[in-house]
């Protein structure tokens, strides 16, 4: 399968995703420049973390107008897999590919720490390799990662099982103290209705190597890889 990692001006975790996919996961990856159109065949596009356009005005607000985003929207519409991590999640929300918005952390400070995530749903291309209720350890590092959606949207997310990850404590409880940013309902990651676009605030790419303290992030990337392998198989 082929991965594309989009580089926006101000992307910071683009190299991290690239290296992790290539070195730790043995995948084929290519960088894509935001000013270009999306050309070529890809199975999964990753919008990496960072501070696109400095996060000035609002996180992700300007990046969503990058030329490549037209192609990303079309790619998603056709069922392509899109993964937004941190700033990538914010861009996906701003561009309407994902519901809701990410606002200033409740504690008002940037937070950088390891968190535990509970896998809520496994019937998605992003979590199919995990077990329901499984806990994953990965870092968060953001100033505006507090997930917000109005109550109707939130209700819809729950009903459609679009909430894929929640912040939890060591016992697996979605308690307020386990919530690093005040996200509604401890939400750490959501997917769209058609389940091919996924955004999350934690960084799985920083949790794919023992040296970095966790390998749990692999679950996300390997789920995507397995899904794409199956899709290819079906097409063949």
């Amino acid at each position: 399968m082929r991965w594309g990692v989009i580089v926006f001006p101000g992307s910071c975790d683009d190299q991290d995703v690239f290296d992790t996919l290539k070195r730790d996961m043995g995948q084929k990856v290519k960088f894509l420049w935001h000013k270009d159109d999306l050309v070529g065949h890809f199975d999964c596009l990753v919008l990496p973390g960072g501070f696109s356009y400095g996060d000035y005005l609002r996180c992700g607000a300007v990046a969503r107008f990058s030329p490549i985003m037209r192609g990303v929207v079309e790619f998603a519409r056709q069922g392509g897999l899109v993964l937004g991590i941190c700033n990538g999640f914010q861009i996906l929300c701003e561009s309407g590919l994902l519901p809701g918005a990410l606002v200033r952390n409740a504690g008002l400070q940037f937070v950088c720490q390891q968190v535990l995530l509970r896998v809520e749903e496994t019937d998605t291309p992003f979590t199919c390799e995990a077990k329901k209720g499984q806990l994953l350890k990965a870092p968060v590092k953001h100033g505006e990662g507090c997930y917000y959606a109005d109550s109707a949207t939130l209700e819809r997310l729950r009903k459609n099982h679009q909430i894929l990850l929640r912040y939890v404590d060591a016992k697996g409880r979605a308690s307020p103290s386990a919530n690093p940013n005040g996200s509604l309902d401890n939400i750490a990651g959501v997917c769209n209705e058609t389940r091919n676009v996924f955004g999350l605030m934690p960084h799985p790419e920083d949790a794919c190597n023992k040296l970095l303290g966790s390998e749990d992030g692999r679950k996300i990337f390997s789920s995507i890889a397995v899904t794409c392998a199956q899709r290819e198989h079906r097409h063949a």
Partner: protein
Amino acid sequence: MVVKIFVSLKSGVLDPQGKAIERSLHTLGYSEVQDVRMGKYLELNVEASSHEAAESRIREMCEKLLANPVIEDYRFEIEDGTL
């Protein structure tokens, strides 16, 4: 023309910054203050043939870029003259 744009959080959206400012004001002894809400304020110059023309362009900019309708409301004022 000078345009002043005010972007504020929708009511219902939590405003931790406003809350924190309110708390610090109370600590400093300004207990007469309530309901602090924090928003953004943009000033810009715009060239337009008429007030109405400016208005419709500015509205567009706000909806497209300057405010996020999921969480924010906006309003603006247009003044003649430049900054």
